[in-house]
């Protein structure tokens, strides 16, 4: 069954179709909520709340093709609301990944640098303001276009672009200064040897 059909059935109150919709969207919704909130249990609550709102309001959707942006709007709003209450975003995510050595995907980097570089980026993402962080998540994690993000966040495409630019600039700066520092310290070590 196509997404449009599933949505149409859900609009009629079909719970079986809603289960199908739930299974289709659960992982990405959970991921989005988890990265925004930073805590598994909170992400679980966010997803549950988002699906409850979705089930109750889906009958108001006029065009089933807009379901994707409509649903993520619910997820993002629920995430923001609950995360602002918790004010503890991303802590668990950061600590949970401290020991996760990731397979190296590029030969240009020292594996150690890459791993610690990622941790650094994770740390920096944690400190980003919610609007910047959300745009980053929707763009990189949910593979949404700028236009789609603007619909999810109910703002201009220019705003999305500017937020994306700002977020990338902050992270790029962090990463460049990290690699510069690593380079310097390696030079020193070589000199001492």
């Amino acid at each position: 069954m196509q997404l449009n059909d599933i949505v149409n059935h859900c609009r009629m109150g079909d719970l079986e179709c809603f289960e199908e919709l739930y299974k289709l969207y659960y992982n990405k919704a959970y991921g989005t909520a988890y990265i925004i909130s930073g805590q598994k249990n909170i992400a679980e609550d966010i997803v549950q709340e988002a699906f409850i709102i979705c089930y109750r309001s889906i009958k108001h959707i006029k065009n089933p093709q807009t379901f994707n942006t409509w649903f993520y709007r619910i997820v993002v709003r629920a995430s923001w609301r609950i995360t602002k209450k918790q004010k503890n975003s991303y802590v668990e995510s950061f600590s949970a990944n401290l020991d996760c050595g990731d397979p190296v995907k590029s030969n240009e980097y020292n594996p150690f640098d890459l791993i610690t570089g990622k941790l650094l980026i994770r740390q920096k993402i944690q400190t980003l303001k919610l609007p910047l962080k959300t745009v980053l998540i929707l763009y990189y994690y949910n593979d949404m276009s700028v236009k789609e993000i603007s619909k999810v966040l109910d703002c201009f495409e220019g705003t999305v672009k500017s937020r994306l630019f700002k977020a990338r600039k902050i992270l790029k700066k962090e990463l460049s200064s990290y690699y510069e520092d690593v380079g310097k310290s390696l030079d020193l070590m070589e000199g001492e040897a």
Partner: protein
Amino acid sequence: MEELDVLLKDILEEDVNTSDRDINNNFLKLKKILVKSNKKRDFWFSFSCIDFKRVVTIAVCSILCAITILISSSSTVRASALNALNGIKTIFVVEGSGNDVKIVQKPADEDYFTISEGYNTAKSDAELGEIIGYKVMYPETLAGFDLECRALHAALWKKLSYDSIPKIRQQLNKAIVNQQEFSKLAGYSPFRFVSGSYKKGNKSIYIYAFPEQFSTPPDCKKAEEIIIGDIKGFWCETIFADYPEKAGEANMSVKPDIEDTSLLYWVNNNVYYTLTSLAGDDFSKEDAVRLASKFQAAQP
């Protein structure tokens, strides 16, 4: 795609591990909530044909229509409505003392004000003395300031409401010189006082002389004791409410601006004197004391 883009995508995807999520079980939990809430909603939904919003809107509109019809057709209801509207008329006044003053709203029918009326007069100090019952001398010159005019005032010690002022103001105006009119206001504790205005260039000063029993020292933000000749006086920094004017009168239904001002006051021979300048004038304490000393020296 830039390296940073790849890195960000990797980081975000790595962070989310949904393998430990039991989607089926989670949906069962959600389903229970949805079914439970559906039952609750069904109960209320059974009333939805009534359309409460519409019922309430119609009811409110009907009440408003009924009131409108009543007001337009019945003089009694119209009068009551007018009374009710008058009842909620408010004015802005300054309350508090010293540094702790604030603008508050008061009902316009609350007794709150003492009023005075006055006009410039060509009468001499001696003639004025006979009218007010005590002697005050306004010298023709005062430390370089020239006497512009003397004024005679009548005031009511009893407090009045803002609403009642216009009516009594006319009576008070007549009572300034007319003893009969003055007597008619006996219930309001009337009294008279005089003032003199002096001018030097653009600067003007005013010296008021009140009977001591009808005087209240001002609420000062800062009061400094000074000596005028051999008399103790006070240099007072205070505020006044500057209301916009409407038909030549202060419109107190509008929030006033608070302006700073200073004045000098002292008491001698049961007469309470105040010396002040126009607000905003460059008028120092030293100038005020100098002028007050000269004025005091001229008194009988």
